């Protein structure tokens, strides 16, 4: 296990280095930060002075090394807009996104797995057809349209749920969360559902396919021959085999959801990092954009590592043995 983690850590370093390089070239070298930092009527002398103070007069490789050293010392720069360290701005917004995404994933498992099992056990029945048609809908509705419909129905017509913002939050175990207050909870419902619908559809399909691929296998028949109940066969024997693809796919989806919760956060004015990045792009707040990209890449690396560990817990065949 230790060797495995060291190998993965080395891979992570390489990936992060490459990301930093690409980000640097993309954002720092191609655009000109002076255009933004200086007023339009600045003189040549002023330009040269600012360029020198920022190190922009140095050759590109030197600038890159400077950029790397800053990052390594934990200095990701200051936001132009908020005039605070970018890392603080991102970490302030991240919990809101994380809360939204985790709620959506939990919803997709709680709803998707039972429906998928139900459909998978009765292939081509009316239940199966209904669930599968529903899941196609979940996949194909455009996210923004679906979000606006949710607002129309539940906020505008029925008036049951609030449509924008995060509502009241409270701190539980030093985590600020919407779950702690009823107001916060009601604010969370619509955006979480909006984000979850496609995931529910995905989990239904994965589960259904898994059931259909697993139930004809000999070990299921042998489990029956041993006198196990259908319930145990489905919930333990079949389920544990199905969890392998579900964990893989949801692991990948988790990262994507955080990175691309943008649409949902925009529609519901959810104060997460998706909304932050859109605002930052509009305001050309480069330090925030750079930090955001590095942050997201790091997150993907960590998630992949966690998925691999989870994986080996579920599937003994790939369990990494102690040397």
């Amino acid at each position: 296990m230790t060797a495995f983690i060291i190998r993965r850590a080395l891979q992570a370093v390489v990936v992060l280095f490459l990301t930093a390089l690409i980000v640097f070239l993309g954002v720092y070298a191609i655009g000109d930060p002076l255009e933004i930092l200086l007023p339009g009527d600045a003189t040549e002398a002023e330009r040269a002075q600012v360029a020198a103070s920022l190190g922009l007069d140095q050759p590109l490789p030197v600038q890159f090394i400077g950029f790397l050293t800053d990052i390594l010392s934990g200095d990701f720069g200051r936001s132009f807009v908020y005039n605070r360290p970018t890392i603080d701005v991102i970490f302030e917004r991240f919990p809101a996104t994380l809360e939204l995404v985790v709620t959506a994933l939990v919803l997709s498992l709680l709803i998707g797995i039972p429906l998928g099992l139900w459909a998978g056990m009765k292939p081509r029945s009316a239940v199966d057809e209904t669930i599968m048609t529903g899941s196609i809908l979940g996949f194909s509705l455009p996210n923004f349209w679906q979000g606006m419909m949710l607002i129309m129905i539940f906020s505008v017509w029925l008036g049951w749920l609030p449509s924008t913002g995060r509502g009241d939050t409270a701190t539980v175990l030093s985590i600020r969360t919407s779950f702690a207050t009823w107001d916060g909870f009601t604010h969370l419902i619509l955006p979480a559902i909006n984000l979850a619908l496609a995931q529910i559809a995905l989990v239904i399909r994965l589960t259904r396919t898994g059931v259909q691929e697993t139930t004809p296998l000999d070990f299921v028949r042998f489990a029956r021959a041993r006198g196990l109940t259908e319930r145990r066969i489905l919930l333990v024997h079949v389920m544990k085999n199905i969890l392998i693809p579900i964990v893989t796919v949801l692991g990948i989806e988790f990262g994507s959801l955080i990175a691309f919760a943008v649409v949902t956060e925009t529609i519901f004015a959810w104060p997460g990092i998706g909304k932050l990045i859109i605002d930052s792009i509009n305001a050309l707040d480069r330090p925030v954009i750079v930090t955001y990209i590095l942050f997201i890449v790091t997150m993907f690396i960590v998630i992949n590592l966690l998925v691999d560990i989870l994986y080996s817990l579920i599937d003994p065949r790939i369990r990494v043995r102690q040397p």
Partner: protein
Amino acid sequence: MTPLLEIEGLKTHFPTANGVVKAVDGVDVTLSKGEILGLVGESGSGKSITGFSIMGLVEPPGEIVEGSVRFKGEELVGAPRERLRMLRGDRIAMIFQDPMMTLNPVLSIATQMIETVQAHRNTPRRQARKQAREALARVGIPSPDERLDGYPHEFSGGMRQRVAIAIALLHEPDLIIADEPTTALDVTIQSQILAQVQKLCADTETGLIWITHDLGVVAGLAHRIAVMYAGRIVEHGPADALLDDPRHPYTQGLIGCVPAANRRGEPLDRIPGTAPAPLNRPEGCAFRPRCTRASRTCETEPHQTRDGLRGWHCFHPVAGEVPA
């Protein structure tokens, strides 16, 4: 005394898009306590489906359309699902052909054995584990306590089949149906397992149906042999009588397929032709297209001729001719 198992006129059919596959088409079998029956036939003759029918494990759309299966006098055809579940793994156990596939790859051996114990008894976990360990020891698995925490992929094919046998023996069943359990294993392991199962069954007076396509395997094992062809038993009787003096031409052909010590080097006699496709069986005797003794009479269904403990379905039996 009621026999352990009585199967009468069993028919298990599978409706398919191209017609009804009559996998089992009128099978009669009787087995008494502690008796070993060899169920022999070519691939596709319906041996496995016969086994699954006894267990109530025929998968839809297949179903038992006719006949009865009585286990210790109790009718199993049409019995409630829960009743069948309670019998399975407890009084009737089954061992499958491919040991690579019969254990769940993601659950430990301990989990799979303990759940089998607990499916039928309210045994505390610790006690169930002890039972599992003893069962593994009984089938000759070294250091059973350690192996119990292993996973199927850590066992060789032969060892996995031993685990499957240990599981089948957990509740000391009255009947074990072994569906070609040694076919996938190499010859030495095959004979070890064969000897072991024979001994275990003799010790506990367990009835055993040993399914195989190889007459040679059951020759030294079974008390009685039933030969299956195209969904029916074409000949059955005490092993010695059937092997020394077969009456059905198909049985005779199968005996020709068994390599005998004194015939080493000579090519085996093969039964000419192939088994009929299940959807396209000939009228009357299904063996007719491959039979050298066939006549016009054989276009009608041959009924059973009984002779003491044995019986066969043939109009022109191979009476008293000892195969060369």
